[in-house]
């Protein structure tokens, strides 16, 4: 259990310059077995918070407790045996294989010379195995793809055999399937090993789908904790992320773009065609409204799209033509 008790993070003052507080009065808990995802707009202090939790920078006030004891009370080696990290730093040394890199995670467990015992080797094998990186073991880390690299870095963190793993933006630079796979892996690790896993990400939609608990830092610097559904229902997500061009749609759990000067559009079509048409019209600058009078009515006749606008009917045989026309009309 990782607990934040009235924690303030930031940068200490130096030579008469006052301390710069990035976040203040944080109260939160990350439970073992849960995937805890830290989200928040850019520049709100996610990395500063994670660095403080990892012991890389001192807390300005308050405490970070791991299983009840303050992390500042642990010496370096003891802390390294309990908390492991995956940082955003991306340059890895050459001439190091994935297995050797994973082996570096044994550092707090090995003796004076750093020699790896059979037991250490077994832990390394296991870490590579569960992260799906066993087949990469003998590849140089500089030759790995971004997704493979994150798996190996996660394996290195696991090789430390910690009770908590903190990951800063591990899905940045990854393509969509790799992101989903990595998040899935982290959730599975949390479950199977009863690990505290705290991961920060920019990928809000994925976070809301996959997280057990969300830590949300809003633009004012307040930390909100809860399940994704709780934070959606009470409007915290929308309040933090809605902007001029973006609205969070609670029901679908996705963000929608909206243009200016839009009217309403009603769509009549069957099956998956209806949501797709709605999405195309939204992008073109219309706001879908399922019922009631609308500025634009679009109907799929089975052969063509019929659009009625200001009492005039237009007929389109292709979806692309309809979209182009709708965009033109919206900007008229």
């Amino acid at each position: 259990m990782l607990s934040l008790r009235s924690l303030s993070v930031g940068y200490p003052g130096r030579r008469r310059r006052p301390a710069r507080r990035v976040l203040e009065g944080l109260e939160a808990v990350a439970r073992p077995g849960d995937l805890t995802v830290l989200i928040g707009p850019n520049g709100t202090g996610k990395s500063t918070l994670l660095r403080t939790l990892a012991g890389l920078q001192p807390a300005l006030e308050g405490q970070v407790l791991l299983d009840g004891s303050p992390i500042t009370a642990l010496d370096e080696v003891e802390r390294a045996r309990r908390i492991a990290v995956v940082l955003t730093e991306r340059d890895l040394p050459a001439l190091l294989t994935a297995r050797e890199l994973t082996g570096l995670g044994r550092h707090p467990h090995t003796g004076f010379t750093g020699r790896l015992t059979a037991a250490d080797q077994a832990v390394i094998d296991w870490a590579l195995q569960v992260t799906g990186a066993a087949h990469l073991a003998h590849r140089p880390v500089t030759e790995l793809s971004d997704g493979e690299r994150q798996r190996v870095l996660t394996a290195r963190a696991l090789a430390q055999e910690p009770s908590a793993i903190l990951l800063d933006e591990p899905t940045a630079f990854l393509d969509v399937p790799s992101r989903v796979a990595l998040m899935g892996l982290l959730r599975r690790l949390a479950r199977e090993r009863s690990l505290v896993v705290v991961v920060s990400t920019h990928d809000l939609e994925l976070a809301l789908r996959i997280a057990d608990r969300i830590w949300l830092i809003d633009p004012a610097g307040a930390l909100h904790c809860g399940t994704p559904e709780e934070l959606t229902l009470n409007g915290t997500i929308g309040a933090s992320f809605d902007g001029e061009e973006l609205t969070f749609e609670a029901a679908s759990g996705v963000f929608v773009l909206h243009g200016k000067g839009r009217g309403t559009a009603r769509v009549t079509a069957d099956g998956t065609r209806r949501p797709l048409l709605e999405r195309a019209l939204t992008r073109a600058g219309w706001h879908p409204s399922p019922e009631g009078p609308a500025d634009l009515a679009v109907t799929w006749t089975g052969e063509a799209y019929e659009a009625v606008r200001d009492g005039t009917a237009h007929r389109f045989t292709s979806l692309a033509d309809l979209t182009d026309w709708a965009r033109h009309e919206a900007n008229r």
Partner: protein
Amino acid sequence: MAVLAAAVAVSFVLAVALGSTTIPLDQAVAALLRLENADPGAQTIIWTVRLPRAITALLAGAALSVAGVQMQTLFRNPLAEPYILGVSSGASLGVALVVTGWGGLASAFTGGVAGLGRAGIVVAASAGAAAVLGLVLALSRRVRSVVTLLIIGVMVGSTTASLITLLLAYSDAQRAQQYLGWSLGSYSGTTWGDLALFTPVCTAALAAALMGVKPLNAMLLGENYARTMGVRVRRVRTATLLTASVLAGSVTAYCGPVAFLGLAVPHMAKLLLGTADHRVLMPASVLLGGAVSLVCCIATQAPGSGAVLPLNAVTTVLGAPVVIAVLLRSRAAQTGWAG
């Protein structure tokens, strides 16, 4: 590793057997073993000239290579080398002060030898190196980032180097020439008396470096990762800078600023062994550095020609093509690597 050890042994024997005076191999071995039938002339040459020279070359090569590995890992920079923080510039300044006769204080300190005695040069170089090392260590306590420290070190080195040019510009040609001679580096001239101090200092610092391999491995991923793996980063940084500078400083004191080995041998060792693991890399650098240095030592004597070449010219002319060839052949280097 066994191959490297054999290379060291062979080059050591060759360094003793070959020199500007030709001595047949059997005579050389006989003289070395102080056999009764040994030629007294050969015995004198080998015991007073060649053996100290070979031991100096072996130690200096090992010291510079190990210091190079330490610096490249600490700064995570393939261009880092033992002198990058200005240790040899400090030593050079000390020597320049004494040689050009400007250092009233310095020459009093060295007992009035006015820069002509060998002991004076060694003391001046050590004092200069120690002064710069002290300055850099003091600054490193106040600096968080190694990149900043690296830049500070380079600045200190450049400042010292420009002070030297200033000194040389206002000294007479003969003294400037004398300084230049020293700055070209040489393994010759070390006496058994010198070795009595150089050997223990060097081996102690080498042993300290070999004991520090575990934290250096953790430092491969950068100081932040190292910290989260339980490394006391500041302590390791200070200890590494200290040992590397003692190694580089003592070599400079006895042999002058020997160029290139400290930069090149670490790369050769990494590419030959194909690993960045310091538990292998460090001992390998000791052996490879010793062997390469001995080969350079033999080459300076230009066996059979009677001429003696400047050491720094040899290390670079011999070493640079080797490093380039190794780089071109290596897949790791082709795909880009950062030390």
